[in-house]
């Protein structure tokens, strides 16, 4: 029995109840489009919120922590070695804050296949001079290119251009809060004082906004070279090495490895932000559950309509069987009806889902923490469309299967005799 002929008969049956068929297909289309819109929106939000943490945080941060030596002189004295020694008011010795042998370490890291990229960083304390008043500030010296490539630096610059930091010597990107206080505009020259008390003049090339007011009041950015100048340090000085990995989940293991290898402190992102993943996965699960429920409900709609169709078309089934159609042929006819409803509904639903996503994408959404985001975030992942369509086709297949089996078991004698 050719597929073409099966579909021809199925089509005739479909046309006979085209209104109900349309309603069923609309049901599928509706649930598919909602499924896609819901997941696209939810995942878009998830990515946005994860991005707040993930984009700005290095997977591993290498630094030289200020800490008290665990072995004190008294522990090395032979006569006290077997005792438990208490020493109070310990202070750390004046070790350097920079990373020793930084050039060699960065070279090793760049050659490591697991590492996506590294961005050196110098953090230092400064004062912003505002007439006779000095404001506290934290200055980060960054490698502009790497910062932009790995940590979306440009997304947080709300005025000016981030690459001016590299191109203009002695330039600074001020935190929005600090700039407001100092009434500094882009292009102005401001004065800052370093820890040693020396005054430097820096040109403002942009504003930075993280969305957290406390940070924006004190945090500013300069280039690596400028920050080294401020600290009177040599050309290879850096206080932190930020590492971004290919695979986020490798971070804890690699952090431990680097800690031993380079004899530095290493902090991985999971330790730094233990909770961020939980929220995302719970939100994803909820939206999948709601979406799949919608699809199953539309499956019941198809089941109902096919059942009705079978009761109405008993005569047709009887004559098909009388003229030599086997049960399996009848089953194929009804399953192809179900699949027609499912596939056409799924395709229309995917299209409408995409339109819904476009609409949501146009709704304004302004948040201080993400200066580059102006509308609701949508994730246009093709995967949601594939999941939705596959699931819709599978659901309608099963919704059609049971009525189809019922139809295939219709005894033509009972129907014809009943007349």
């Amino acid at each position, binding site marked *: 029995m050719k597929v073409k002929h099966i579909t021809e008969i199925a089509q005739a*049956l479909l046309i006979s109840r085209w209104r109900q068929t349309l309603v069923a297909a609309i049901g599928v289309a509706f649930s598919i489009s909602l499924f896609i819109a819901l997941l696209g929106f939810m995942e878009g939000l998830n990515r946005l919120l994860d991005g707040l943490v993930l984009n700005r945080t290095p997977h591993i941060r290498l630094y030289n922590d200020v800490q008290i030596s665990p072995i004190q002189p008294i522990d090395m004295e032979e006569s006290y070695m077997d005792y438990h020694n208490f020493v109070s008011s310990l202070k750390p010795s004046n070790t350097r804050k920079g990373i020793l042998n930084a050039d060699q370490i960065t070279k090793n890291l760049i050659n490591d296949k697991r590492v996506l990229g590294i961005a050196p960083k110098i953090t230092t304390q400064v004062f912003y001079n505002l007439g006779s008043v000095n404001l506290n500030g934290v200055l980060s010296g960054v490698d502009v290119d790497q910062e932009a490539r790995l940590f979306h630096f440009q997304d947080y610059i709300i005025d000016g251009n981030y690459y001016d930091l590299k191109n203009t010597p002695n330039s600074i990107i001020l935190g929005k809060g600090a700039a407001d206080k100092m009434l500094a505009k882009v292009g102005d020259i401001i004065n800052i004082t370093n820890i040693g008390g020396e005054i430097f003049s820096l040109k403002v090339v942009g504003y930075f906004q993280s969305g957290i007011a406390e940070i924006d009041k004190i945090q500013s950015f300069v280039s690596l070279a400028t920050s080294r100048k401020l600290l009177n340090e040599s050309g290879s000085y850096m206080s932190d090495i930020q590492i971004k990995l290919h695979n986020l989940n490798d971070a804890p293991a690699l952090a431990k490895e680097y800690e031993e290898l380079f004899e530095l402190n290493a902090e991985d992102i999971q330790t730094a932000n233990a909770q961020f993943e939980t929220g995302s996965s719970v939100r994803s699960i909820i939206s999948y559950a709601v979406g799949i429920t919608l699809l199953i409900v539309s499956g019941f709609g198809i089941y109902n309509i096919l059942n009705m169709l079978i009761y109405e078309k008993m005569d*047709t089934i009887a004559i098909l069987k009388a*003229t030599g159609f086997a*049960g399996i042929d009848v089953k194929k006819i009804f399953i192809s009806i179900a699949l027609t409803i499912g596939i056409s509904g799924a395709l229309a639903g995917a299209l409408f889902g995409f339109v819904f996503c476009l609409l949501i994408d146009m709704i304004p959404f302004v948040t201080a923490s993400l200066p580059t985001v102006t509308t609701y975030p949508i994730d246009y992942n093709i995967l949601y469309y594939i999941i939705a369509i596959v699931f819709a086709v599978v659901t309608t297949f099963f919704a059609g299967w049971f009525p189809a089996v019922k139809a295939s078991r219709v005894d*033509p004698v009972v129907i014809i005799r009943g007349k």
Partner: protein
Amino acid sequence: MEGEKVLEAKSIYKSFGTVDVLKDVSFSINKGEFVSVIGKSGCGKSTLLYILSTMDTDYRGDLLIDNESMNGKKEKELALIRNHKIGFVFQFHYLLNELTTLKNVMIPGFKAAKFSDVELEENAMKLLKTLGIEKLAHRMAHQLSGGEKQRVAIARAMINDPLILMCDEPTGNLDNKNTDMVFEIFNELATTFNKTLLVVTHDLSFANKTKRIIEMNDGRVVK
């Protein structure tokens, strides 16, 4: 070949619960015969037809179609035998309203898949022409009159060139004019085209015009 057995019933018994409907029914039909089965309402003639048509398999005895026993055949095999060797005309036409006349006639041919679609359509048109309704080929089935529908049903029964045409009260729903017309068609099929026909009817005037009458009473063949 005249005299060749097309269908043979060998002592067929059938009962619904404790009520025996058919008792020891045996007869045979040769190729080219035009046979009518008559009897009172409830004598089991329709039941017999459903058994002979292989649709009802719940009976004792043996049924041979084209010298082949139907005992122990699977549903699928029986469906194929119905498709290839038996044509049906019922009291009600059972046409698919959403298809054209031509498509309705072609449906059993789809299953048989002996011909390509083009050849099948030619055959269907030829049949419709023979029955004088070729003008209706592209009309939808629900637009036809009762007599026209029955003629389409006959064309549908003939499309796979069956060994035997089985009819269950084919004129039960028709007026006299259409009844005469249907008889003329059957008669022509039997005489001109040498077809075998088995017609169950309670219309005695119709039956009297056929070559052979099988009369049933109370589940037995009387004559």
